[in-house]
């Protein structure tokens, strides 16, 4: 959802959580308000600021956007499906 707060456009982005990140944050999905046109890298900075323990345990997590792992310069909006993916351990 895009809203205008004062003169600044913001976007409310949902982020799915898996594995250890679910336990650190305490839920399976979080919402983060970011400036419109934000990137995965900025989203990551904001989330680690909101949940410093994600950073403390130093989990090398990556982001998936629409089911693909992407680099931090990729822009995201509320229309994208975004997920935090800790290191995988299937098998």
């Amino acid at each position, binding site marked *: 959802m895009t809203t205008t707060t004062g003169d600044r456009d913001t976007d409310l982005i949902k982020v799915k959580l898996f594995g*250890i990140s679910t336990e650190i944050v305490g839920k399976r999905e979080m919402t983060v308000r970011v400036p419109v046109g934000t990137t995965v890298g900025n989203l990551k900075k904001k989330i680690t600021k909101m949940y410093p323990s994600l950073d403390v345990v130093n989990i090398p997590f990556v982001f998936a956007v629409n*089911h693909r792992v992407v680099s931090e310069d990729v822009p995201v909006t509320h229309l994208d499906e975004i997920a935090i993916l800790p290191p995988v*351990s299937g098998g």
Partner: protein
Amino acid sequence: MIRITDNAIDLNKILIDISDNSAGAITLFVGTVRDHNSHGHVSALYYEAYKKMAEDIMAEIEKEVLRKWNIIKFSATHRIGNLKVREISVAVAVSSEHRNESFEACKYGIDNIKTRVPIWKKEYSDASENWVTGVSLHE
């Protein structure tokens, strides 16, 4: 054939699915829950998947296998949820005319499932529970 399931994995069904009149070999890899890790006893495992993405990546791996080797059918099934010791967590099966192709393709399948598919496991012991830190995903 790709599947992520909450139910027990039926190996007989997989072998029937993978069989083919032109196949002279079937290789089946079965991953099971071990009662220990490098730190000690493990009593159970819990598996969680990002299901849609996991199925997409497993389908990609299937395509790669079919492109790289002259095989007939490929099957990969991963279970999620709570599993006890000895239960089957993953099964990869390949049928081919001759055995070498199916051995190699099956190894490629399970190796890539373990390192590329968004599935996570938590180990339970009598005293603790820990998410297993595995492999970081890449673009």
